[in-house]
Each structure stands twice: as C-alpha cells, then as structure tokens.
C-alpha cells in the first residue's frame, strides 16, 4: 500500500526492513520479504512517474574520458532504471568471479555457484528466456554465447499489485534519503526529506540501500560525512573501483561461410574469448556482437573490398553467380573494464535542491581496457581469415597507434558498477560477502555497486540474483533474531 510522506516514522509503524530505492534490486527485495511476512517500508526518492524535479537530482560532473551525462544514464522514479532497460542480459561467466591473470582485482569473495540458486527466481522476475549453453568455436579462441533478449520488464508494472495490495509493504514516494544515524555499529535511523522541505525519521531493524550504481556511493559518502566517518569507518574504497562496460562499433565483416558461427540461422551472433584466450593474451572478458547487415551496406562493403582485393572479388562474384552470395556483419563489442581505484564517484562541489552535493564521476579507460578490445577483435579477425569464414575490417579507431577509444557513439552500456564493492576486507571493499557494510550490523547494499568486477554481460540478471540472495539472508537474520 502507498503511504503519504507524513506517515513515515509513525510510532506504530514497526519496520523490519527499510528498503531505499525501487529499481531492479530494491523492489524484488521488498516484495520477497513482504511475502515472507515481514513489515517492509519501501522508500523511493522519485515520484511514481517521471518528474523533472526528481530527475534533475541526477545531474552530476564528469572528469576524464568521454561519458554520457549522468542524468541521462539512469532514471529516478518508481522502478528506477528498469524503466529504460533493454531486456538484454545473461549471467556472468564462472571465471568472471576469479582473479584473472590480467587483473587480480577482478576476484569476488563469492563464486557463480553462490548465485546459481537464485537464477530461476531472478529469471522469473525478469522474464528471462532459457539461455543456451556456450559452445567453443574450434580454432578461434572464442566461444559462441547467448543472451536473453526478451521483452524488457518494467519493475513498477511487475510489482504494481504488490505495491497496491500488500498489507505488509508500505511504499512511500518522494522520500529522499538525506542521512543515516549510527550508534555502536548499528544504523538507528534514516532521515528522509520531501521536495518541499518536510523531513521524517524512520527506525527499522535493517536498512537496505538500493539506489543504483552511482547513488549508492554518493549517498554513503554523504551520510558518512554527516556522521564524521562513523558510518563507514574504513572508507578507503568507498566510491572507488567504479566501472561501466565500454561499448563501441569495432568494424564490419564479410562472411563467406556463415555456418561455423551460426550466422546462417541467426541475425545476431555473440562471441566471447575463452578463459584460455584471456590468460594467453592477458586480457579481460569481452562480448563481440555480430549483427546481420542490410543489402545496401553489404554491397558498398563488397565494392570497397573488391577494389582492394581483386582476387577475393572474383570469388565473391563466383559465389553470387552460383546463388550463394556472402553476408555482411556489423561488429560491435561490449567489454569488461578493469576495476581500478582511480575510477570513482566523489561528492561534487555543486549542491542539489535537497542540499546535498551532486555526484562527480572520475572515469578513464586503462591500457588494459584497450588491450582487451584490441586482442578480442584480433582473435575474431584472425579466425575469419585463417579458416576462410570471412574477412574483417577494423573500425578506423582500432587501426591507429596508439589506440584511443571513440569519443562519440555508444561509449558505454550505462551499466554503473562498483563503488561499494564486495570484498573480504575494507582495504578493497565496502561490503562483505553478504552485502553488509563493514562495521555496521544492519546496513546492507543492493545493486551493481557491490560488483567487484563486471565481466562483459549486461548486469541486470546478476543484480536481481544478488537481490534475492540478500533478501534470503535478511530472512535468515530476522528469523534467527526472532528465535532468540
């Protein structure tokens, strides 16, 4: 049920878990715990629909390499950024959880086996279709992979009836978190402010911050400053190791034989380096995306290639005459960014309408980020050529030395990850393997901000897996306390 702002913190409210944020992480946690019988308060800073007053709070500063404006990369209202989610996702690879040879910082304190028990429930929430198994492409160092590309789920629609009817889930919009009070390693109160200046305090047994991959860092940084560092006592890693998936058009390909890669049956084929390839070439993970090209650009490509390679042109003409013309592919890629301390969220100088510092993103590509895409494309080009499957043309930016990533176009996936990363220690992380903030007994973080590293896969499925895992952990905690 939806409650008015003024009823927040009412003496009879008795909240078991206060969940702050209603996106891909917050809503599933709130709904799952309410289903289990707990009293849940779900607070959303935005409104139930898009509003300028809320979205404007997402403006921020950017320092470093080209990035998309922070207020266009995410949405601030009920459902969060699932309101513009494209519906493409897949689980992280098992080796995304380990320390990769190219960067030991990629290790998670948990493995994929810790998330697999939550896959079915997460897939059900997101309407994720069955995702086919990965299959190695012989002689390529690549494997063919699959994504779920079904209709995207809007969380606010998915949970509309729960929000409306659940007697145990109280939902409040326009409730902007502005502070967290802590005493003796426990959060005692959360402070919320309405756009008109009204404020309310909420007490709960547990608090879950689920405000997205930038806001989780900003809010913790701000609340920590307010408490003179008593909220996150070892805050060395807070806001740091921030990542996105670089995205770019990497070239095009003429496909002479579509069958080895499955291009005879599919319009879109996805490939990724094998673990051996990652180790051999000292690179991180990468998703290569081949999209069937239309007839006009295909002909233009053939004309260009034919002028450069007349022998190949004769082959193409012969294939076309025999009714077996080549195909064309547009090549794109999304790849893993190295987790580095230098890439971070900070509190900016400008103050927003709620009186809080805006976000400042400091974000740059590393040499490893560039090597990862360069070698991944090289593997594909070598395979096409050596096995006579096709010929690849590198995008212009990949032919320069040194390589600089494009400053226009896709740039990134708008997948905000890291900043409150999961770790064994406060030196490299903010939360433990249960997503609990180090040093706080009852404060948890949900969402992609806890990712220690990011693989190349679109993160929504992993976010929801982690959210359900956290809900079950809180269930166990609350049950244990009730028994005591």
């Amino acid at each position, binding site marked *: 049920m939806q409650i008015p702002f003024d009823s927040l913190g009412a003496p009879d409210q008795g909240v078991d878990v206060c969940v702050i944020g209603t996106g891909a992480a917050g809503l599933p946690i709130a709904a799952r715990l309410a289903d289990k019988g707990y009293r849940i308060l779900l607070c959303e800073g935005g409104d139930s629909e898009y509003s300028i007053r809320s979205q404007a709070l997402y403006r921020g500063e950017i320092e470093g390499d080209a990035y998309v404006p922070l207020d266009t990369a995410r949405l601030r209202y009920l459902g969060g950024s699932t309101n513009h989610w494209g519906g493409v996702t897949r689980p992280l690879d098992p080796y995304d959880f380990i320390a990769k040879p190219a960067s030991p910082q990629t290790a998670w304190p948990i493995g994929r086996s810790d998330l697999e028990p939550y896959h079915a429930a997460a897939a059900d929430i997101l309407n994720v279709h069955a995702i086919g198994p990965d299959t190695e492409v012989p002689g390529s160092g690549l494997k063919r992979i699959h994504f779920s590309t079904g209709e995207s789920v809007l969380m606010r629609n998915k949970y509309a009836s729960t929000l409306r009817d659940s007697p145990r889930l109280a939902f409040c919009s326009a409730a902007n978190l502005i502070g967290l009070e802590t005493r003796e390693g426990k959060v005692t109160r959360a402070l919320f402010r309405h756009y008109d200046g009204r404020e309310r305090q909420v007490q709960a047994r547990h608090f879950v911050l689920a405000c997205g991959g930038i806001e989780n860092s900003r809010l913790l940084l701000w609340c920590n400053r307010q408490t003179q560092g008593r909220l996150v006592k070892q805050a060395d890693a807070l806001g740091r190791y921030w990542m996105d998936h670089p995205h770019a058009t990497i*070239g095009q390909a003429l496909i002479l034989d579509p069958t080895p890669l499955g291009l005879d049956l599919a319009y879109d084929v996805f490939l990724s380096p094998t673990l051996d390839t990652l180790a051999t070439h000292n690179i991180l993970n990468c998703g290569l995306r081949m999209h069937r090209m239309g007839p006009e650009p295909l002909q233009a490509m053939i004309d*260009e*290639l034919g*002028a*450069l*390679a*007349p*022998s*190949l042109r*004769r*082959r193409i003409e*012969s294939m076309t005459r025999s009714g077996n013309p080549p195909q064309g592919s547009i090549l794109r890629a999304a790849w893993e960014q190295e987790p580095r301390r230098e890439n971070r969220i900070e509190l900016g100088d400008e103050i927003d309408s709620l009186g809080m510092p805006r976000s400042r993103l400091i974000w740059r590509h590393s040499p490893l980020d560039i090597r990862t895409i*360069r070698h991944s494309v*090289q593997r594909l*080009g*070598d395979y*096409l*050529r*050596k096995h*006579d499957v096709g*010929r*690849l*043309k*590198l*995008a*212009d930016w*990949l*032919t*320069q*030395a040194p*390589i600089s990533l494009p400053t226009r176009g896709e740039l990134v996936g708008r997948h905000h990850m890291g900043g409150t990363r999961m770790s064994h220690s406060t030196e490299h992380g903010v939360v433990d393997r249960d997503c609990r903030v180090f040093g706080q007994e009852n404060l948890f973080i949900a969402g992609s901000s806890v990712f220690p590293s990011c693989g190349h896969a679109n993160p929504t499925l992993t976010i929801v897996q982690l959210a359900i895992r956290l809900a079950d952990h809180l269930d166990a905690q609350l049950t244990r306390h009730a028994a005591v």
Partner: protein
Amino acid sequence: MKRRLTRRTLLKVAGLAGIGSLLSGISITLAPPRTVVADDVVTSHEGSQPTTVEGWMLNTRDL
C-alpha cells in the same frame, strides 16, 4: 617472368606489412591492387600470409 617477380615481391611485402600491422595496429595500404590480380579464383588459402589493407584483415591470396 617480369609479372611473376612483381607479384612475388608484392606478396612478400604484403606478408611483412601484415606482421608489422599486427604488432603496431597501423593500417597499411599496398600498391594499386590491379598489379597483383591473380589469374584464377583462389579457393585454397593454405600458405597464404596475413596482411592488413585499409583496415581489412586479409590473406595475401585475396589480393
């Protein structure tokens, strides 16, 4: 004889250029393509060397 030597030389250059471009990532444009037109349609790429021409990752026998 003259044609054969020209083609062989160009193929050698193309092979070296391919290796060089693999290492440096630099696109290398070869001599005008018509000087290396093959007499027949190549169906086997055994023994062909990698080369990069205007960003295209090719076999020398494509030329």
